């Protein structure tokens, strides 16, 4: 075994190998330093370009609250489930569970993703705006290519009650109707963006940086009083139901400020569930629908009469025999009222009386009064879809046109305009801009009718609600009410129909120092009654009973008996 002595490799040869073994690592370390330290900025930029992506961060939409801070529209967080068709890969079981959670059919999901994949799309919503806890369950299925996106969903705590005023947003949180539409810029925030790190499959690994923080939208305080709103809603709905009416509108105004305290329509809709949304339901009829105001404009005919100087409070108008012929037409009262004062024309709502006034004065002056009280003009409420109505002013007036204008035909107004015109009467002749936003302090108006005349007319309007008037059902215990009924024939296909009416009542309370004005319009009541005094006036009464108590307005018509007792006690 030891016969051959091995001569080992020379030191030179092993030295060369050792030098190589030690220089190569040194070269590698130099290169590593080059990459790790010298070129790190470039390499990191390259890496970021591949892995960093900016994604939007949804901003919180401002809240809509009533005048007392009660929420009318709030945003709650929801999650939307979306898929990347290219990355999506689910087992049969996962697909089944996913479909079950999202309440979809497995085949539906499969088809949707397959078609988007074919189109080369990288994004498709599977289901939007679901409960975050449900979304969490979806994520726990761990299906590749499925992600959630935080969004905000609008929730309306008052539901139907304030639906028309508040309106609603669409699935992208953009205002579509009502305040949500009109104040969209104010309410909506600006979406922020966030830098996230994504893996190569496009899944978010971690947030890196907030590039732009989302700015929440601003809250909006409405002039609406949720309690009055609810009261009005309840009573209007009851009236529309009771009288089998087609639709109805009601609005309450604050006399001092011109604020809209309540605004209600029937039929209504639930803004939280708009699956069965029909356009006729979401119209805010208070501002979008016009009608001929009928007898409710008679006070302004009287105002024009007083202004003309041809009429005084004591002027007597003979309305016998209860009807009059004007051209080919016949104007009728319900019965022969005989000799009437201006006050009794209002009280009994005499068409013949009003017509006789109108035929005495310049019809252009009557139109001017209508213009001054805001007919044919915007109310400045800022509500979307508001129409101006129309005033008719022919160059040459026919007698029948002059006559019918006096009792409210030949012009059209909205319920809101009608309410505003009575606000002029309530505020000693001031025409005020209306507002849906909360106002602080007294709002000045423009004087359009003299305070003296408005006071006189208010006295007459008290008679409407008093014993013997047409609007007794509008009476509110403990208060003097001033108001006017109206019953208008609607225009059908063949002129004025005999069975389609608009029943209205506009009133104010307390009559001597009015705080609230309310207008009620009920279209096409099909029950036993159709007179404004029978259909609309009771709504005024039942709403105001509650409203005056809620607003803590002291009664101005105290019962006489306790006072007598007190006097007796004092005498003792």
């Amino acid at each position, binding site marked *: 075994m030891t016969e051959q002595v*091995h001569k080992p490799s020379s030191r030179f040869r092993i030295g060369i*190998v050792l030098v190589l073994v030690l220089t190569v*690592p040194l070269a590698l370390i130099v290169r590593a330093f080059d990459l790790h330290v010298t070129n790190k900025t470039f390499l990191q930029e390259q890496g970021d370009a591949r892995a960093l992506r900016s994604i939007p961060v949804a901003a919180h939409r401002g809240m809509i609250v009533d005048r007392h801070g009660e929420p009318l529209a709030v945003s709650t967080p929801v999650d939307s489930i979306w898929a990347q068709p290219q990355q999506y890969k689910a087992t049969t079981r996962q697909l089944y569970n996913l479909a079950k959670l999202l309440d979809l059919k497995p085949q539906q999901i499969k088809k949707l993703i397959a078609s988007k994949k074919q189109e080369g799309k990288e994004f498709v919503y599977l289901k939007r705006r679901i409960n975050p806890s449900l979304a969490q369950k979806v994520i726990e299925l761990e299906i590749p290519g499925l992600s959630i996106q935080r969004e905000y969903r609008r929730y309306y705590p008052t539901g139907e009650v304030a639906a028309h005023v508040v309106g609603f947003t669409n699935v992208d949180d953009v205002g579509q109707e009502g305040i949500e539409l009109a104040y969209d810029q104010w309410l909506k925030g600006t979406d922020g963006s966030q830098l996230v790190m994504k893996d190569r499959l496009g899944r978010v690994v971690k947030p890196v940086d907030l590039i732009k923080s989302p700015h929440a939208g601003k809250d909006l305080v409405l002039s609406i009083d949720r309690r009055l709103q609810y009261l009005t809603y309840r009573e209007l709905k009851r009236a529309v139901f009771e009288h089998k009416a087609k639709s109805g509108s009601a609005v309450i105004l604050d006399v001092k400020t011109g604020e809209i305290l309540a605004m209600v329509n029937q039929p209504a809709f639930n803004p939280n569930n708009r699956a069965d949304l029909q356009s006729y339901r979401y119209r805010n009829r208070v501002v979008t629908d016009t009608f001929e105001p009928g007898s409710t404009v008679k006070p302004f005919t009287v105002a024009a009469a007083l202004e003309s100087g041809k009429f005084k409070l004591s002027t007597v108008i003979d309305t016998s025999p209860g009807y009059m012929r004007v051209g080919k037409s016949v104007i009728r009262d319900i019965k022969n009222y005989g000799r009437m004062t201006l006050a009794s024309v209002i009280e009994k709502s005499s068409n013949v009386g009003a017509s006789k006034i109108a035929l005495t004065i310049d019809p252009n002056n009557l139109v001017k009064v209508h213009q001054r009280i805001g007919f044919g003009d915007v109310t400045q409420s800022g509500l979307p879809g508001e129409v101006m109505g129309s005033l008719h002013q022919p160059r040459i007036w026919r007698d029948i046109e002059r006559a019918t204008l006096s009792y409210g035909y030949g012009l059209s107004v909205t319920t809101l305009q009608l309410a505003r015109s009575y606000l002029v009467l309530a505020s000693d002749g001031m025409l005020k801009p209306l507002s849906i936003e909360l106002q602080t302090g007294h709002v000045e108006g423009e004087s359009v009718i003299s305070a003296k005349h408005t006071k006189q007319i208010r006295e007459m309007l008290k008679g409407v609600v008093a014993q013997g008037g047409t609007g007794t059902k509008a009476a509110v215990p403990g208060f003097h009410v001033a108001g006017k009924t109206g019953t208008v024939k609607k225009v059908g296909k063949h002129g004025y129909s005999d069975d389609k009416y608009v029943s209205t009542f506009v009133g104010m309370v307390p009559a001597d120092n009015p705080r609230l004005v309310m207008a009620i319009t009920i279209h096409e009541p099909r029950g036993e009654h159709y007179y404004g005094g029978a259909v609309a006036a009771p709504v005024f009464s039942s709403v105001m009973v509650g409203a005056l108590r809620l607003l803590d307005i002291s009664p101005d018509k105290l019962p006489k008996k306790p006072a007598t007792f007190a006097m007796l006690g004092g005498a003792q």
Partner: protein
Amino acid sequence: MSETLTSYMHAAFNQKIQKQKIIWTSDYWLLGTVLALLILGLIMVGSASVSIAEKNIGEPFYYLWRQMMFAGIGLFAAFILVKVPMRVWQDLGPALVIVSLLGLLLVFIPGLGKNVNGSTRWIAVGSFGLQVSEFVKLFMILYLAGYLVRHIDAVRTTAAGFWRPLGLLMIVMVLLLLEPDFGAAAVLISTAVAMMWLGGVRVGQFMILITSVSGALALLVYTSTYRMQRLTGFMDPWDDPFNSGFQLTQALIAFGRGEWFGVGLGASVQKLFYLPEAHTDFLFAVLAEELGLFGVIAVIGLFSFLVFRILLIGRRAENRERPFAGYVAYGIGIWIGLQAFINIGVNMGVLPTKGLTLPFMSYGGSSILVMCIAVALLVRIDYETRKEDRIIQKGRKVYE
């Protein structure tokens, strides 16, 4: 051949002395370095493969568990093979060449060979794939060491003695290139050349060999579009970062992110599907990202020290007149060093993409197993040298 093996078996199990003191008189520097690399490798494989495993298998630690199992098998094999005397390996040399050739041919039998990413490098064994080239590299080192011992004079003096083993190597290389496994072929021929150099080949002959090998390698590159593409992708990866340069740019980005001390263990972004083969060939890039320059220097340092230690073992064996053991140690040392530094170089973009694993660290059963066997051989060589030392010392004592 088999007679030698069985006779050894009897000897091994009958002589109790051989069972003792194998570990206790070992090179602790060597074992410590290997252990450090193995453990760091397991940690990095675990970290790098979490996302890939979760996506492909649905179980985040799938690759880690498998790698741990491979390491266990490797260590078990090492504990057994450490008992095989170097003499037996020397005798087995020619047989191992035949096994290598057979193995390389088996790969091409349909149904038996496994094709991954366009390369047929594996033989299916149950659910595992046996990467033949890993074993071939070790076997060829053993054969070449034996050849050098048998024909040392011819090698050192004649051209024929020098060229003959290279002829055999060429056949193996052709088979490797057919798979294709250019990396293994390059490592093998380079190791063989280095071993010849240490064996004492004449400088003139050696120069001819170097130039012809370089020429052959260059020719191979230019004749294959696949290799050419890899080479151009390596020259300027940023020229086409989303196609040919994709993998490399992603690896370089990993280095850039790592900076001095890395982004932290487990925090790599590049392993999130940006870097293909993050747990195999490009494990080092993930390590560079997570542990930074600090970790990179540590690993390069560990490998350098390991190679130095192995060459020392070889030198000592040679000095004790155990040339076969010496050449085997040189071969293994150069092989591990080459493979490690090529892999690291590829990760850093200084060498074209090769498909070579990082020894002891990259995911891969065959690689780990073969590396463990190589370490067993080194321990055995070291043990036998020390035994020789002791005999000489004792002899001296007796002599004195």
